[in-house]
């Protein structure tokens, strides 16, 4: 358990998000663009479908021998002069990074975008020991200035319009009157960050992949900040989930061919940074120390668990962009580090099924996520599995369980089904107006507040059958 359980009910969080007009506008523009770019990228890439199957197969095969590949990775990182740490929990991961920061006397850490460090809530912990974390990915920089958390896996500030960013920069950076022009704003962020890169003693990154047989940590970025964070500061710490290990460079080529296309519709991201240990004798650039923190935090238990397939995830965000629920409510309403359909599964993995009691139902099971996923993770099936666990472990409210079990009893008996239909027809009478039902009391109002309900037919099809 690493994250505090969100107590505001999901429905309230979602409704608040729906009421935010700017959020709606920003999400609609960004997700629509992502969907179009992704579609175009794969339309131009006929071998993409086969590579997706291949990537999935690699992930599966790697999971089956995860211990072997992790041992290989550790041996190779150490051979290159790096240090490897294993963290069973978020607390352990934080302590490892804090230990490194203390020992090296770090005062400032530049961070390249990393969901793993969000997952372990590293920034607050760094701040608490007097190390200033500076997010250097533009989106992350924006939300750090706004004291928020990412609302998307690859586009953390997706929920903000350019107008909001201009206001934020004007206020927080003491530069009043900035225009809502992305180019101007980017230039300002770059000026601010350049200073930080030169001052920082610690570079903290995540990792998109780690190649076992070479000990290479791979970062995929678009702004070059990953390269700066891994080469300028004295110490580089990479934090990654254990499932990010892949066997070889050949495998890496498969993933790189589909990752950026799925994420942003680019053929490749602008920068693909390959890190092999600290600076070696004779090299001009690179850190004195390199640390790799391997994070479990609930992952290893799922190798044999119901959420196994979610360990294939490349964190591309494609499932968020196509999810009708995410597109309406955005990432913050989910309440935890990882939003969207895959986020529900990852939240359950990290914080236990009880944390997604409501979130497991934040999906119409439309299947768009599974279709967009580059490694074809069957997200809807696992959401259903989580729901099954809610019943089996009695996490679901007893009222709901009684309702569904009664419903099941009715469906097993044609006699009860007929009686139920008759009762329904009588009970609906006071509410039918002009052939429709516009308002119903109690629970049924959840439908009729926004939609009409058709009245039940005076005779069911089965009752009409003998006259047909």
């Amino acid at each position, binding site marked *: 358990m690493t994250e505090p359980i969100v107590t505001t009910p*999901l*429905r309230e969080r*979602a*409704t608040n998000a*729906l009421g935010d007009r700017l959020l709606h506008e920003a999400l609609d523009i960004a997700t629509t663009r992502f969907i179009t770019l992704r579609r175009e990228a794969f339309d131009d890439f006929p071998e993409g479908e086969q590579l997706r199957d291949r990537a999935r197969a690699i992930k599966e095969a790697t999971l089956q021998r995860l211990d072997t590949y992790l041992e290989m990775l550790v041996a190779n990182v150490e051979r290159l002069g790096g240090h490897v740490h294993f963290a069973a929990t978020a607390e352990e991961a934080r302590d490892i990074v804090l230990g490194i920061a203390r020992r090296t006397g770090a005062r400032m850490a530049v961070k390249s975008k990393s969901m793993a460090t969000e997952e372990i809530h590293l920034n607050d912990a760094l701040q608490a020991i007097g190390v200033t974390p500076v997010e250097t990915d533009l989106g992350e920089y924006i939300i750090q200035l706004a004291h928020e958390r990412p609302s998307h896996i690859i586009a953390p500030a997706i929920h903000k319009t350019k107008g909001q960013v201009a206001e934020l920069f004007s206020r927080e950076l003491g530069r009043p009157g900035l225009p809502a022009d992305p180019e101007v704003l980017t230039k300002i962020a770059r000026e601010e960050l350049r200073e930080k890169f030169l001052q920082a003693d610690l570079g903290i990154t995540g990792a998109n992949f780690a190649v076992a047989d070479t000990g290479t940590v791979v970062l995929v970025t678009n702004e070059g900040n990953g390269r700066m964070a891994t080469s300028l500061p004295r110490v580089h710490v990479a934090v990654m989930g254990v499932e990010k290990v892949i066997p070889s460079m050949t495998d890496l080529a498969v993933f790189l061919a589909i990752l950026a296309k799925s994420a942003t519709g680019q053929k490749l991201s602008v920068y693909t940074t390959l890190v092999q240990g600290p600076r070696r004798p004779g090299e001009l650039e690179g850190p004195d120390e390199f640390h790799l923190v391997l994070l479990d935090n609930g992952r290893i238990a799922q190798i044999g668990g119901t959420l196994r397939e979610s360990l294939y995830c490349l964190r591309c965000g494609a499932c968020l962009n196509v999810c*009708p*629920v995410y597109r*309406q*409510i955005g990432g913050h309403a989910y309440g935890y580090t990882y939003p969207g359909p895959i986020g529900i599964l990852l939240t359950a993995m990290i914080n236990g099924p009880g944390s997604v009691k409501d979130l497991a*139902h*934040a*999906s*119409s*099971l*439309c*299947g*768009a996520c*599974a*279709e967009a996923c580059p490694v074809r993770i069957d997200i809807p099936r696992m959401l*259903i*599995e*989580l*729901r*099954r*666990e*809610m*019943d089996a472990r009695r996490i*679901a409210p007893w009222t709901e369980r009684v309702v*569904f*079990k009664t*419903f*099941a009893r009715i*469906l*097993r*008996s*044609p006699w009860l*089904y007929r009686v139920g*239909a008759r009762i*329904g027809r009588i009970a609906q009478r006071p509410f039918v107006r002009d052939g*429709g039902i*516009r308002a119903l009391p109690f*629970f049924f109002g*959840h*439908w009729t*507040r*926004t*939609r*009409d*309900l*058709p*009245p*039940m*037919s005076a*005779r*069911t*099809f*089965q009752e*009409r*059958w003998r006259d*047909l």
Partner: protein
Amino acid sequence: MTGEHARPGAASASTAAPRRAALMITCLADMFYPEVGERIVRLLRRLGVEVTLPPGQTCCGLPLFNSGYHDEAAAVAQRTVALFREDEAVIVPSGSCAWMVKHEYPGLLRGSADAAAAERLAERTWEFSQFLVRRLGHTAFETDVQGPLAYHDSCHLLRGLHEGIAPRTLLSHLAGAQVVPLPGSDECCGFGGSFSVRLPEVSTSILDRKLANLEASGARCLVACDAGCLMQIRGGLARRNSPLRALHLAEVLK
């Protein structure tokens, strides 16, 4: 999507078209949209198919399954499998229910005495448009519906059964009808069974998007192959007093 997809007759040419088919009416069509069932029966009879209705039908159990009540769903599946044990072809008016029978029944009943029967039922079950196009090889129909039509892909039919072509083939072959593309036709309408009442505001917000796309399409009538989507979309249109309509494919074909 036009004629180039319309050669499904070739696929089923080797197997003779069935003379008898059983209708799995499904709970929503039985109780709310019986006229859809009537249209299907009349249409099939006109094509020379004798339609039967195994008595004592209730629901396929999909709402139970999707909410995680799998033992209960398996008990319902077992009943349904027994009801349709003898039928050569089973026709379902909703893609989601067809998906439940075809994709989930075998898994739910695996290892039970009904496992083999569930597999057989899965093979013989057809969503309505698929039955017409892929099993009967019949695509020429007429329509009384006026004004341009737009097709909405139901999620389970499109992504579960991978069927986006059969319904479009039928619509594009309709004499005199104009079919217009629906922007975001493959996007969910927001129904999602119990999702529609668990998160009603989100469900409705998703629906708003679907209805805006319908309005933008210029169609007078949306056509779908799932009673769940129709309940959601019609519910939204009625609430807005919209002049637009939403019909089941069977209500369009004549």
